[in-house]
Structures are given as C-alpha cells and as structure tokens.
C-alpha cells in the first residue's frame, strides 16, 4: 500500500504554487502605485518623449509583475517560460513591418491627395 502511494507520488510530479499572502498584497500595492503613476502622466498632461517613455515603463513594470508573481511565471521551469514568453517577442518584428508600411501609406496619401482622407 505504501509502495503504491509512493509510486503515485512519484508519477504526479506537478508542483503547486504556494507563497505567502503578503507577497500578493505587496504586488497588488505596487500595481496600484504604477497604475496611479500612468494615470498621473495623463492627468498632468506630459507630452512628447517623456510621456511615451513613462507610459511604456509603467506598462512593462505592471505586465512583468502580473506575469511573474500573479501568474507564477517566476517559479516555473525555464522550458515553460521560454515557450510562452519568447514567441510574443516576434510581434515586435510585425510592429516594425507595419511601421514601415504605415509610413509608406501616409506618404502616398499626402503625395496623391495632399492630406484629404
């Protein structure tokens, strides 16, 4: 009986994520502060590169906290982390392609219609 239990134990190797509640409360607090920060950027009406930099910074920090702690990615094995987090980076290639395409489109619109839609 014990052998069967030990065998079952060995076969089911999936681990449960168990962390102190305090960790979640701290991350929750950080997310609140970061969201308040990004709202503040709009509220005081920052413009230009500083605005874009701060928006992206707060966004990446928030996304990182959610994925790493709330979704427990920080404690998963690297094989899963890479399988899930690397493919979305390819979207950046798509972004570069569409930026180039948009520049061409707006150039054509300006050249042909002189700015009318």
């Amino acid at each position, binding site marked *: 009986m014990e052998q069967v239990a030990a065998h079952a134990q*060995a076969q089911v190797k*999936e681990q449960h994520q168990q962390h102190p509640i305090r960790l979640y409360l701290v991350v929750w607090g950080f997310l609140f502060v970061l969201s308040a920060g990004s709202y503040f950027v709009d509220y005081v009406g920052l413009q230009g590169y500083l605005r874009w930099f701060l928006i992206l910074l707060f966004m990446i920090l928030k996304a990182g906290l959610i994925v790493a702690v709330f979704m427990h990615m920080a404690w998963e094995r690297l*094989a899963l982390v890479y399988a899930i987090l690397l493919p979305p980076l390819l*979207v950046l290639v798509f972004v570069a392609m569409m930026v180039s395409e948009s520049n061409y489109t707006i150039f054509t619109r300006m050249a042909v219609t002189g700015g009318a839609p």
Partner: protein
Amino acid sequence: MAQSVPTHTGETDERPHGLRGVVADFSSDQRAFKNVSWGKAMMWIFLLSDTFIFGCFLLAYMTARMSTPVPWPNPSEVFALTIGGQEIPLILIAIMTFILISSSGTMAMAVNFGYRRDRRTTAALMLLTAVLGASFVGMQAFEWSKLIAEGVRPWENPWGAAQFGSSFFMITGFHGTHVSFGVLFLLIIARKVWRGDFDTERRGFFTSRKGNYEIVEIMGLYWHFVDLVWVFIFAFFYLW
C-alpha cells in the same frame, strides 16, 4: 527527501536547471513541461494564442493611427467625465483599471487559499473577483453607450480620424467579451469550490473526471491574462 524516486518513465525529481534544463526538458520523452499539469500547460498555450490575437488588434490600431493624415481624437478628452461640474480626464478608465487590478489581487489570493483547501474563503474570493469583473463590464457598457450617444460609430466620429471608432469598438469589445466569459468561468468554478467538489472528489458532470484545486489556478491564469491585456490597452489606446 534527498534521494529521488525514479519512475518507469525515467524521470527523477532532480532535473538540470538553466539552459541545460531547457534542452533536457524539450529533448526528453513524452512531456516537455515537467512539473506543470497538462491543464495548466494548455491554458498557457491558449493564452499565448490569445496574445497574438490582441497583439494583432493593437497592431491594426497602430497602423490606422500612423497612416491617417487626419488628427487622432484626443482620448484624454474623449473619455473625460464631468463630475460635480468639473471635467476630469480619463477618470472612468482609471477607475476601471483599479477595479481590474483589484480583481486580479483577489484572484491571486483565491488560488492561494485553494491550495490550502480552504474552500469557503476560496469561493468567497472568487465571487468577489466575479463581482469586480462584472462591474468592470458594466462600466464598459456605460462608456460604450456614452460614446455611441455622442455619435461615435465604427465609420465616423465627431472629433477626427474615422478609424478611431472601429479601433475602439473592436479592441475594447473583444476585451470586454473576454472579461464576460471570465466572469462566467469564475462563477462555475466558485460553485464547484463552494460545494466541496474538490474535497469529496466529485466527478464533473461533463467530463466525469475528478477535479482538484488546480483548476482555481488555471482559472486564475486566464483572469490575470485579461488584466494583463488591459494593461496594454490602457497604455496604447487610452494614454498614448
């Protein structure tokens, strides 16, 4: 505890870490994701595909906004609300953001209490998450009806580039649908937890399999993902 128990699959508790671990896991027999269940792995893969869907929506929005010679409506003014005779920019969106983040917090705690087999607290926290999610959808419905009343259509709006409406309805609509289904999913799992299905190992009505508290974590992954998508929508659509 120090010695590992080998199984007939040849897996041991001690597996290499780092890059060597990645190679070892992917080149091993049967399963690459060693210590996560198939349910969790499949939810992650579903979320990966969903990432591409929302990524494409945001890309389409970027392309529309970059390629139009007509000025883009200022979201800070479009989404302002007049409260007490004072116009506050983007206030509804800020409240929605805080609500969604709070729902993520309660969900993370529900997962934690689930693994402690505290079914009442787990179910209560999941219900709270569902209520917060439903109020988010309610505010979105309010926002939609306000904008529609002001004349925003997928093909035109009073303030500028026509693509604003189509991008807005498409992106927030798809996200709101995800939240709505998440609320349904939450209610179903919360009922199971409340009834003690995972303590008595009651079989599911559809799959006739025994469930366990891991489903709360899998549900949590989906819910956090919805929050994650909102982080990107908030940054790119509302703040940019």
